[in-house]
């Protein structure tokens, strides 16, 4: 017999009614597939320049014109002063303050979906910044600890989301300034 409902997944019917079940007449359940496909033209807004400069191998942050606080990731508007910030370039070197070793990928975009597990999510205080920048740290998990010196590396390959134009790598001794 051909299925009359194309989207039908399954039907489950109760074997027998439970005594006193007020919902006894409503226990048969049918499940169907519902489709919802979405694709967004998503604006990166006032932080767009950060992503554009990653393509040029430059790492930008913002500095509040009022209190001088340096934000990385950048904030166009300082939440402390509500003053409009200025762009500043940082060296891209910094230090790990805390981290986690992730054994599953949340698959939040195609770049993340492609990550090999386990991978390291590090919170990095960039030299000259006042906030921590969270990103992938490409290193053996055992190597990673608070205080580890790292630097921004720039992706050679095309990426889906421009945040993946960069990642962190440990600074090896001879690289140190």
């Amino acid at each position: 017999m051909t299925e009359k409902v194309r989207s039908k997944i399954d039907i489950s019917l109760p074997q027998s009614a439970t005594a006193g079940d007020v919902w006894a007449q409503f226990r048969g359940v049918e499940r169907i597939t519902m489709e919802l496909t979405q694709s967004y033209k998503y604006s990166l807004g006032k932080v767009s320049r950060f992503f554009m400069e990653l393509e040029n191998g430059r790492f930008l942050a913002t500095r509040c014109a009022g209190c001088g606080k340096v934000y990385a990731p950048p904030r166009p508007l300082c939440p402390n002063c509500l003053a409009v910030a200025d762009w500043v370039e940082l060296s891209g070197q910094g230090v790990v303050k805390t981290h986690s070793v992730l054994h599953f990928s949340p698959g939040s975009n195609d770049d993340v979906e492609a990550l090999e597990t386990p991978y390291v999510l590090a919170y990095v205080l960039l030299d000259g910044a006042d906030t921590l920048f969270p990103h992938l740290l490409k290193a053996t998990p055992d190597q990673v600890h608070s205080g580890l010196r790292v630097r921004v590396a720039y992706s050679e390959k095309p990426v889906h989301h421009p945040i993946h134009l960069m990642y962190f790598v440990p600074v090896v001794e001879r690289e140190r300034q």
Partner: protein
Amino acid sequence: MSLAPVVAAVGATPVASEHRGCNLRDLMAEAVLDCLADAGMDDLSSVEHGLTSYESDHFNLGMTLGAILHDTIGMIPKPNVRIEGGGATGALALRTAWAHIQSGLCDSILVYGCEKNGRGVSSRTANQLFALSADVDWEMMVGGSYTGFYAAMIRAHMEAFGTSEEQFAHVAVRNRHNAGFNPIAQKPMDISIDDVMNSRPVAEPYKLFDCSLLSDGAACILLSTEEWARRHCPAFDRRAPVYFVATGCGSDTMRLGDRYPELTNFRAKRRAAAQAYAMANISDPMREIDVAELYDSYSGVEIQAVEDLGFVEPGHGGPSVAGGIFDLDGELPVNTSGGLLGRGAPVGATGILQAIEVVQQLWAAVDPQRQVAKARRGLTDTHAGIASISVVNIFERRD
């Protein structure tokens, strides 16, 4: 200020990983019928106001669930408002209802919350949708996840205070054990510290048994003035009156990194607690609170919470928790329901379920194996994200 609202009645469905036989309307209806039975009322005709509590539009394939659920449970044409506050949704809904009563806008309000937590979609889709509940432009896009953010926080706590994995494993064991005495709990388990330590790593230092559950479920609380409850709720006079005496709320940055240099604890929670304690005239919470439901989204979060709520000194959470003072037979039993780890966490209902546990403890109405003797005052602690929103609600028995 007028007298605090009373809890007239409560209702809930069992919490499950998937209620396959129910959509959200069905779940909500079941919880409301449970609440009516608890109230000894035939219908909701006397109730003046509704308040819908749920987090996710996309998991539930609907953008107007507030209106749909209000219609489903027969509250038309009375006023309704929908509250969303991430993981704190249910507690924020109760806080909002508190203000509705205190302001005199209404004398009775049904706070009803529910959630289905994404079993209907593929895990890739679920993960993408969960990603939308964090900082979309930065943390989530690099490959972060909430488990990872919480893990980075507890690592900082371990480095600052010497907190150990065994100490937070104690929470994972105790809360699942407590769930064994709660008939609506999703996943009671009797496991050992070793079982937790040997479970597979998810986001180090967190392992599988350190992580709370994804759940389907619904719950509701009928709040009112004392006068309204005496007139309309037959059950009210049959048990000790419980008042919703205080509520506090705080907030924090969306991204953990923007909180630097504080990485170990929850500033929003300290603020929420300070407000609620001032309102309830509490100066020594460890002594003055008898039972508490804490937001144990991950086991270590309970250790951070007992510090931020002022139960113990900053940095002392690990040894205090592992020493047993928050166990069922301890000085201040917490997560007697099983918490998010054992009872489960249907987001829009979670804060409501926490309040129900505390209220039923104050009524002395829970399973004797988890009943806290002579409990007079109880607290709920609920937060969103990594405490970007934090809510503390306090309930008091007065008889």
